[in-house]
């Protein structure tokens, strides 16, 4: 039988997720992509002491998702629910100083570019996973571009490294207006586990203006997709928790 790639491709059928029209399935949003939820009897002071990234703030009694690396040590210490318990989906969020979503100018199309400023490669791979048939970014009119000059949105991954600080700034500056910056992963948002390490300068938000934050370590592709749609103003308002 002749080996025709196209036929093989068609035979495979549709694998693509229903998101954003349908809710993500548990497979797309696995337990470890859910933020820890403190139990009613949680001891906040002990929780703060045990948290390796200082994400648990006993003063305000809240968990800073931008710092959380989802290590789940607090679950095994009894502070938070075990993963798999119903805790609700995690949302990407707009930052306090975010710009107007850029939907009006570009219609539904969005060209994105990824820059790595010191990641462990897991976030990079999750961003690249968006192009695989399960998530298929192009069905939403979003595509990767090779140059910052063509990009509407910049996805930043990793803990900002001294060697990359200037590179990030120059990449940002060479993007045309209006532009959008999405910081993906705990390292980009706050430094995560690398806060205080030699190779960490500052959160990405201190170097360039950031519009959307997608917490996680690494966030699953569906969450990154959510962040992209949020930045493009394509999610409903009530979904966009500030």
């Amino acid at each position, binding site marked *: 039988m002749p*080996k025709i790639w196209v036929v093989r491709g068609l035979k495979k059928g549709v694998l693509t997720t229903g998101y954003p029209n349908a809710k993500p399935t548990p497979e797309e949003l696995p337990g470890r992509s859910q933020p820890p939820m403190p139990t009613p009897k949680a001891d906040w002071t002990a929780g703060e002491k045990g948290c390796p990234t200082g994400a648990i703030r006993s003063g305000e009694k809240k968990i800073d998702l931008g710092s959380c690396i989802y290590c789940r040590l607090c679950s095994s210490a009894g502070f938070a629910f075990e993963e798999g318990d119903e805790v609700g989906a995690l949302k990407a969020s707009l930052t306090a100083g975010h710009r107007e979503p850029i939907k009006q100018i570009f219609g539904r199309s969005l060209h994105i570019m990824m820059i790595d400023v010191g990641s462990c490669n897991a976030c990079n791979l999750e961003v690249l996973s968006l192009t695989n048939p399960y998530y298929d970014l192009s069905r939403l009119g979003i595509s990767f571009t090779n140059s910052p000059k063509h990009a509407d949105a910049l996805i930043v991954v990793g803990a900002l490294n*001294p060697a990359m600080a200037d590179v990030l700034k120059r990449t940002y500056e060479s993007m045309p207006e209006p532009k959008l910056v999405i910081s993906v992963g705990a390292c980009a948002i706050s430094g995560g586990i690398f806060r205080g390490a030699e*190779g960490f300068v500052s959160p990405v938000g201190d170097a360039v203006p950031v519009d959307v934050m997608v917490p996680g370590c690494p966030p699953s592709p569906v969450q990154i997709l959510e962040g992209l749609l949020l930045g493009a103003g394509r999610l409903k308002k009530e979904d966009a928790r500030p």
Partner: protein
Amino acid sequence: MSGESGGPGGSRVERRNIEGLGENMQLSSVFQASGLAYALISDTEANKTILSELPPTLGEEFGLLLRGSDAKTGIPLELEAGGTVEGYGVFEFPYGPVSSGVPEAGGFRLLTYGERILKIIPQVNFKKRGVEQRVLGRKPEDALLLIERSAGNFSASYSTCFVTAVENLLGLEVPSKAKWIRAVAIELERIHNHLYAFGRLAEAASQNVAAAQTHALRERVLRLNSKQFGHRYLFGFNSLGGVRRDLPKEECNNLTNEIRLVAREFSGLVEYFLSSRIFLDRLQATAKLPRRDALALGAVGPSARGSGIQWDDRLTYPLEPYEDIYVNLETEPGGDTMARTMVRVREIESSTIALRELLDRMPGDGTEGNTEGHGVGGRTEDFAFCRIESPSGDLIQVAQLDSQGRVSNLQIRPASLVNWLPLARSLEGNVFTDFQFAFESFGLSFADSDR
């Protein structure tokens, strides 16, 4: 130094001082412990690891390994070997640190003459986070969080390597089942990384159906990871003295079936791939790395096996359970991109077979070892090293603890670091457009080499 220093490799490790490298020997790592400099040498003929004090004859490759570990954060480092290239018509093409072809922060200086590449100088350390410095003074359990985030796609190899070295130092008894589960994670990691490398090659050749289907298979493996180990990239399943996730019998059967389906589908894809002349033309005779160069420059993993070097840590430095299960040593004599790709393709198959055996014969005891009071009276003078075959090759970590059981010395020799020079050498004389194929076939990661 007492006589019991060394690693968990048992009789495969020989402690003797050598003068220089023999014919079939490869320098694997250079490290410092307790104020002395040591060298780890792989004897590819006797299949032994030799631990020696650092011989005074420092070759080119010795220097590179040392420079890699001494590198400072924030200062990019150029890995250059061989003579300089200059003259009329030589053009220098800077590539990176922001590029789409290489989705990571890292660069290359490409010296070209017309279409020909004369020389490539990889630039690393754009993303050195300083894991080795950061873990100092921390308890091994806390250090583990950093270690597994050194290289996200090799996290199971990294964490297993570290805990095995530390458990050896502390003399911890680890349940057999925990070790078997670690091996399952490492094999899953190998499969998803090899699938990624293959998918990227297909992408580079614009074989879109092949690329899409391979990446879909990879996504399936990631979802299996997530289901069985709680994390798509296997973070956090390892702990000191055991593992945090149990694999009950029925889940083992499930996993075996799922992986078998993935492997079967992949072999169907490979059959298509092998009949696609367009694809094969890009790989055959591209970026040749002769065995002699591979050995001298320190190539490891599929890159070395693609050049005919018979070395796989799972066989030549076997930890439990690899002594008991069947792993096929996949080598190819060609040394070109095709050979490296075929090594990866066949390793996916052999990993599937190994996984089936691992899951079938999984021992029944618990997964959590007794780590009570392990901090007391640790062997502070001694060090332990461990070698793990990560998807890109041999990963070496050397660990030392202080009297409180905190990490006092950690030196990581990642597989990617030593594979940069073989990549650079293999591309000499090739045309510019072959770069992507060579890069993907070596499976290198800047996160891994910079850590």
